[in-house]
């Protein structure tokens, strides 16, 4: 259905990879546009990574700077790990979008704008001086390949036959823009056409909506072809991915699916109790559709109620899970201490955002790591793990559930806004390859037997038995007061307390036995090891791979299990002269590593609410490697 070229075009330029960013008003449908472009690129076999960037406001007044919404797609013919530092092509639907994003465009990059929106009102709304129009500015026209398209007008003209109303028609501009871009990068329009047919054509039975969007898309495509606005078309060949079935997946979706998969593998039901909060809410949204998978979702009155309900659910034999972001974790911290004491399975999904306090709720950050370690009174150890990419959220969510069930303790799953919303292609695993998670509960006693000792422990793992209500003969009480070893009765005995504190610590430490060792990417010794955790995997890997390609003696390693550390961590670190730890915080993992291994790990710490800029990272790593003085990052 993609229109066949009517004239022989000039041969397209082949590129390795391209970063394109769509931007415009919150109401301009940029997230949808970016998503469609991503899907199409996925079907073409490109590797990709995305970075949605939307404001905290729902829909700030049209045309203002606060209302700018963006979606960046990096697509490539080779393996990529990040959404890209600089933008090769920017699509700006209005002046505010242009203003907010132009500085990220590479010199000479393509800038496609909807010139119809560059009117006096809009220019003023985003704070340009009177009588100034950036489109006429030498700066812009000389530094970039500026392509001005009257998209509003052309869209309206393309849809004159529709009698659906001006508002709906105007809302199709984004598809006109997408059409242009599809043409520019030689992408077929089929996949998007199918999308509109399915979503509006059937489900919501609004075939007219499907139709106008499809027509706008086509019109944009034809316009690209006809208008000869671009010096060249570009081609990005498919990447050589391993064979198999793929899908696009974001971190939040992968987390949702991972939790469900884990529950199925454990043959257990889930109670996911949560209170909405950006950027974690998607997970409860998704799970609330999955009741037939034994998933019960509970929107609690607050985060405290949510974690307490999860604890109650675990006491009663389901898997209690609660999801939130940093401020919610703070509220849950008292109850998490209770879960430590009760020794019940609990998964806390913490999707980090930029803090402190309300901070920048839609932006990413890694500054809640120490909160997850220490944000509770008393010695209150939890297992802490962190996925390293959107798709990794799937396996790590399964790990979270597995570890919580196996070790009867809270597991904190540290995602972040970048992972949560970013997407990448995912080679879908065969569910049969995922091993079952074994859980046992004592069976009812048929005759009155021995007294049940709720805090008697497995000698290997130090976990206690999980006897659940409804099981005759296993009636017992748990509570937050210190408990006598074995009986679980309240005890204020000094030595017992000391012993119990040690046991709880040791129990978590023993989880090391079932977690995989840390793997090094690159040579396993050398001048420098760049160590990361969580959502920075992509940037670090890209930077270090590049430096290694340039011949530097540097490897990278990424911690997905943080408490306990993998058993080989100390040994790995010892094989490198310098250890560099980039984090989107002021050095939280660095502190843990320094304290534990007494090595002078150097941090790279930038907190801009975004993933690391790979170029900056590369440069800082080299500088640190060069610099014998090894000063800390600014």
């Amino acid at each position, binding site marked *: 259905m993609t229109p066949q070229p009517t004239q022989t075009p000039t041969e397209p330029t082949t590129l390795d990879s391209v970063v394109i960013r769509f931007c415009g008003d919150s109401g301009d449908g940029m997230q949808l546009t970016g998503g469609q472009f991503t899907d199409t690129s996925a079907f073409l076999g490109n590797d990709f990574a995305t970075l949605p960037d939307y404001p905290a406001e729902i829909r700030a007044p049209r045309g203002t700077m606060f209302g700018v919404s963006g979606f960046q797609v990096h697509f490539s013919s080779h393996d990529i790990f990040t959404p890209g530092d600089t933008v090769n092509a920017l699509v700006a639907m209005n002046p505010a979008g242009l203003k907010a994003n132009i500085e990220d465009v590479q010199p000479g990059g393509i800038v496609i704008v909807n010139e119809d929106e560059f009117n006096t009102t809009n220019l003023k709304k985003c704070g340009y001086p009177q009588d100034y129009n950036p489109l006429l500015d030498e700066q812009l026209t000389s530094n970039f390949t500026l392509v001005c398209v009257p998209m509003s007008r052309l869209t309206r003209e393309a849809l004159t036959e529709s009698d659906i109303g001006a508002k709906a028609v105007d809302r199709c501009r984004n598809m006109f823009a997408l059409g242009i871009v599809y043409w520019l990068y030689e992408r077929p329009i089929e996949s998007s056409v199918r999308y509109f047919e399915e979503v509006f054509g059937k489900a919501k039975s609004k075939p007219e909506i499907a139709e106008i969007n499809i027509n706008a898309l086509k019109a944009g495509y034809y316009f690209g072809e006809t208008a000869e606005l671009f010096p060249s078309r570009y081609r990005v060949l498919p990447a050589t991915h391993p064979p198999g079935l793929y899908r696009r997946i974001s971190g939040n979706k992968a987390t949702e699916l991972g939790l469900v998969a884990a529950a199925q593998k454990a043959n257990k039901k889930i109670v996911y109790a949560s209170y909405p909060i950006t950027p974690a809410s998607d997970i409860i949204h998704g799970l609330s559709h999955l009741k037939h998978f034994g998933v*019960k979702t509970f929107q609690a009155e607050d985060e405290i109620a949510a974690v307490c309900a999860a*604890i109650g659910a675990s*006491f*009663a034999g389901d898997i209690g899970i609660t999801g939130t972001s940093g401020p919610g974790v703070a509220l849950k911290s008292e109850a998490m201490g209770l879960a430590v004491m009760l020794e019940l399975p609990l998964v806390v999904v913490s999707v980090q955002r930029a803090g402190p306090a309300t901070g920048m709720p839609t932006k990413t950050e890694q500054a809640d790591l120490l909160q997850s370690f220490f944000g509770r009174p008393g010695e209150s150890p939890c297992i802490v793990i962190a996925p390293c990419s959107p798709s990794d959220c799937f396996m790590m969510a399964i790990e979270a559930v597995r570890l919580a069930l196996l070790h009867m303790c809270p597991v904190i799953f540290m995602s972040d806004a970048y992972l949560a919303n970013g997407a990448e292609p995912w080679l879908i695993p065969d569910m049969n390859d995922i091993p079952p998670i074994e859980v046992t509960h004592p069976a009812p006693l048929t005759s009155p037997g021995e007294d049940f000792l709720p805090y008697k422990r497995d000698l290997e793992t130090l976990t206690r038995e999980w006897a659940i*209500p*409804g099981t005759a003969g296993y009636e017992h009480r748990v509570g937050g007061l210190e408990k006598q070893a074995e009986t679980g009765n309240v005890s204020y005995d000094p030595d017992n307390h000391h012993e119990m504190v040690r046991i709880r610590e040791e129990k978590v430490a023993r989880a090391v036995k079932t977690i995989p060792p840390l793997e090094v990417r690159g040579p396993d010794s050398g001048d420098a090891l760049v160590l990361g955790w969580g959502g920075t995997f992509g940037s670090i890997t890209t930077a270090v791979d590049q430096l290694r390609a340039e011949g530097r003696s540097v490897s990278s390693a990424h911690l997905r299990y943080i408490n306990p550390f993998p058993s080989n961590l100390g040994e790995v670190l010892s094989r490198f002269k310098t250890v560099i730890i980039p984090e989107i915080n002021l050095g939280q993992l660095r502190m843990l590593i320094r304290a534990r291994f007494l090595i002078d790990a150097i941090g790279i710490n930038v907190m801009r609410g975004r993933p690391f800029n790979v170029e900056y990272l590369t440069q800082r790593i080299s500088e640190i490697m060069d610099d014998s003085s090894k000063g800390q990052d600014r």
Partner: protein
Amino acid sequence: MTCANHTSLPVLNAKDFTTDQDVRWCPGCGDYAILTCVRKVLPKLPFRKEDFVFVSGIGCAARFPYYMDTFGVHSIHGRAPAVATGVKLANPDLHVVVVSGDGDLLSIGGNHTMHAMRRNLDFTILLLNNKIYGLTKGQYSPTSEFGKVTATTPFGSIDYPINPISLAVACGCTFIARSIDIDMKHLSVVIQRAIEHKGTSFVEIYQDCNIFNHQAWFYASQKDTKADATIFLEHGKPLIFGKDRDKGIRFHQGKMEIVELGNGVTESDLIVHDETDHSLAFLYAQMSHPQFPEPLGIIHANPDKPTYDTLVQKQIKASFERHGEPDLQTLINGNDTWEIK
């Protein structure tokens, strides 16, 4: 794990519900009577012992679960209704009883109490109201009377108290009752009805804190005053009270009014208690000592409002019916896949 349809239940008694843990309340504490009462009521119910879960927060009252040989959670301060909600979400067949104090359930935990009641979760809340913080040694609570001199209010408290019944009524709670520790018989009946009720059942129990607030309930517990200071509600019966049962309550302009019987005023002029009438409950919520006798008994009971637990199960069932046997791989694959060969 499920416990429906038991054909035969073992015969149990209070001792079967008694743990080996010594009870650690102060001598003379009203909690003892309530504990005894609950231990006696449970064997009367057609439920299995292992299906009971007692959940509490923190406070003297909240030690309750340790003394009940059932499943139990002594959680953290104020959060018992939230924990209980989780228990019921996991297993709606369990019989869950929240027992805690006035500070726990109305001060720090007020919000959870409120939301549990409005959701109509199917569990019982026993609020042991001693109008004081016992465990932390005598600070005033949200039910303490205005002007109360306590550890934190040496010159008298300046908070106006909250009426728990009022709150329950405002939240649309489907079972609301009140009783008192010293009246074991009445208390037993009320607690039994509460546990049997489908939906959130809320029972305020006047409880004597022998150490920090001993005389708080004297007006409702002492021989010479109680008949005038309280009124026992009985479904279908007129509102009569007083030592000589010579006083009654009738409507006047949409409000309640105390009248002396006789002199032309007869029982038929009085309000007849109807526990299913929610508007009536709003009126009872306004009756407090010394203006009015305080209502004891079952103030409101509506067994017909679907419970949260039931509705959860209903949606799960509907979902199964719609989707059929769930297939994990299909779910994981999603709708937009592409294949690379």
